[in-house]
């Protein structure tokens, strides 16, 4: 075999009388012709621009004046670019690790299920769609209104399963009825002595909160010496009419409201619940002492609300989540193919020797997988550093500054109205510098594989 190859290789290509050096030159010229289109395109649209951007980063916004390192100083001192750099660091730390780990877990578990092809397709599918579409999807999912955003719908459903929603959220006292509302508590303005009444005309309650069968509110019966009585009712007649602060025909009692009598020491002395007609009786009070009558906040607490996912606080987390949704599939597919190419005899031997699955994984599989994990990790880092689309699409206007990253800032500064291509160039060069170590890793890996 080898012999034939060598002899054929020695056969001159064409025109047997050409000297070796001439034929070599000819081959170089042919190679140049094959390379020319690529070299021209790469030179004009990648290499030359790189140099130009490098030079441009030392000039001012209009490009007329050399300003030295000023753009680079601005980059680290201006608030918006600094946020962008900080966020990029968060991205680079969180996103590649999360994707690689999730991909690793999926790839290992894939072995144990029969429907692994279907699972792979489902997880990998987001790789095929645009980040723009993914951005639209995630912006919709994380809307704050639980009626619209599916994530908050789930959050609210989970929250209300654990917290009791109050019967009358958002209730307020009627003005000039001698009542005050503080921190959700509704209480009498002045102290009340046992043997007297305290009424609570409330408004701001949705009529459907009254239930299916509301009862006409009634005035409380006269209190005994150790009692405070009164009525808690909705001081509102459907269709209008009635006198504010008075129980009118058609106004309904609010049943089930807790009423506290608070002593001068601030402690709850006694409490009661309102009846269907809104009346309550607090008994067992000290005649002669004075109390404030209060409806505790628990009666009026708002129900569970959605989390403001798209606000400055959570926005970067949400955008990173959308990135993981897309790229975990990439990590999974790469790692799974690394696993399937692996010779499993070592693992089998270890199992026969009684090693646990966890030990087999950490001592044998993971180390053998390390090269693939490095490839996935480096690819993801290079990709994450220049993340643009998702950050451009998902945050609404008011959260954009908080979500900023270098690539978006570079676009804003140079094309999106900032009109400072000097600073834009400096930001582009920063991206290039950040990618540099990973370029070197790639070149090293390539060299090592060739020398093998």
């Amino acid at each position, binding site marked *: 075999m080898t012999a034939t190859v060598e002899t054929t290789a020695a056969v001159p290509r064409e025109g047997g009388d050409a000297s070796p050096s001439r034929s070599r030159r000819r081959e170089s010229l042919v190679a140049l012709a094959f390379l020319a289109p690529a070299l021209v395109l790469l030179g004009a649209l990648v290499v030359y621009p790189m140099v130009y951007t490098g030079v441009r980063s030392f000039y001012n916004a209009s490009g007329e004046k050399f300003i030295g390192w000023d753009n680079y100083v601005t980059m680290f001192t201006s608030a918006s670019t600094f946020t962008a750099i900080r966020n990029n660091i968060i991205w680079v730390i969180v996103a590649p690790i999360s994707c690689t780990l999730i991909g690793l877990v999926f790839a290992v578990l894939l072995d144990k299920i029969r429907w692994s092809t279907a699972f792979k397709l489902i997880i990998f599918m987001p790789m095929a769609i645009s980040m723009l*579409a993914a951005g639209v999807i995630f912006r919709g*999912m994380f809307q704050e209104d639980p009626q619209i955003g*599916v994530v908050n719908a789930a959050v609210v459903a989970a929250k209300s399963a654990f917290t009791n929603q109050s019967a009358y959220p958002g209730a307020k006292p009627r003005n000039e009825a001698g009542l005050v509302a503080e921190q959700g508590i509704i209480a009498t303005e002045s102290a009340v002595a046992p043997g007297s009444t305290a009424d609570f005309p409330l408004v701001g309650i949705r009529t459907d909160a009254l239930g299916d069968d509301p009862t006409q509110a009634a005035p409380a019966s006269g209190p005994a010496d150790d009692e405070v009585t009164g009525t808690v009712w909705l001081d509102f007649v459907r269709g209008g009419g009635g006198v504010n602060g008075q129980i009118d025909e058609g106004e309904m009692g609010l049943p089930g409201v807790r009423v506290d009598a608070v002593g001068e020491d601030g402690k709850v002395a006694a409490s009661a619940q309102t009846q269907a007609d809104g009346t309550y009786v607090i008994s067992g009070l000290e005649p002669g002492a004075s109390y404030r009558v209060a409806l505790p906040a628990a009666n009026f607490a708002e129900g569970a609300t959605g989390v403001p996912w798209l606000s400055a606080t959570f926005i970067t987390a949400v955008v990173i989540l959308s990135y993981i949704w897309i790229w975990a599939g990439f990590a999974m*597919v790469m790692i799974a193919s690394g696993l399937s190419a692996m010779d499993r005899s070592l693992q089998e031997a270890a199992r026969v020797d009684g090693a646990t699955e966890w030990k087999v994984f950490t001592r044998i599989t993971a180390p053998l997988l390390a090269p693939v994990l490095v490839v996935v990790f480096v690819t993801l880092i290079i990709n994450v550093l220049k993340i643009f689309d998702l950050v451009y*699409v998902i945050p609404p206007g008011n959260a954009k500054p908080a979500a900023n990253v270098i690539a978006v800032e570079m676009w804003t500064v140079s094309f999106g109205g900032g009109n400072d291509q000097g600073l834009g160039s400096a930001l582009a060069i920063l991206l290039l510098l950040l990618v540099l170590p990973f370029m070197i890793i790639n070149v090293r890996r390539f060299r090592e594989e060739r020398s093998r």
Partner: protein
Amino acid sequence: MTDLTVVKGKRTPAQRVLGFFGKGFVNFALIVVALLWVIPSLGLLLTSFRTVGDSTTSGWWTVFSRPAQLTLQNYVDLLSNSAITSSLLNSILIVVPATLLVVLVGALAGYAFAWMSFPGRDWLLVAVIVLLAVPLQVALIPVARLFGWLGIFGSIPGVILFHVAFGLPFAIFLLRNFFTQIPREVMEAARVDGASEWRIFTRVILPLGAPAIASLAIFQFLWTWNDLLIGLIFTNAESQPITVAIQSQLRQFGSNIDVLSTGAFVSMVIPLIVFFAFQRYFVQALLAGSNK
């Protein structure tokens, strides 16, 4: 037979119970994960079949209790919206030439790197690997100027050229790696027959390299179709691709949700078809691109 029973006998009943539940648990966990992964796309799909009024007052999941709200109206509106339909056409006009050019130029260079010897070959190859990771941001400002000077800024040819240039390093790298695996005997036989390099390229390299070329084409197609940034900068209202047309509706997210969801889904249909039809090639491109 005896072997089997011996192996089975090694597992204690406790281990067997654990194994069964372990498997059940893994299945259950992965079903949950798969659902979580599907829900986002499903939500977008269902939203695209609901009116703006419904979408701004209730969630897409109410479709399951009130299927009557589903309507094709958004799609009818979208396809009669000339800005969207012309941007779809633009996307095709950009993506098809960009893909073909990357494959052709990349294959020519890949062949030269794989089978020709010329001075500086290894250094050029290292340069290609370096360029593989260059963020395209470093080229935006100068190329915008260059295109302005050439008079192709804002036009479809400009966008195509940019896509081709930044697709080339990956294309060259991928195809070179594949072409080097073509058996030496095949190449020598062709050369002994006195075939010209061009003839070898068209008659030997391209047919034998078809799987790698298909992988590259799929990858480049999806990459170009899904691009937003390059389109955002290098196109105008007449030449913008679908992604740019959709993003211009983002400012009023809620009230434009009909155009956004429907447009986003339409923009997903072509890549999804390509993906599901050729996903094996796509995966191969990813593997070859980073593993070699």
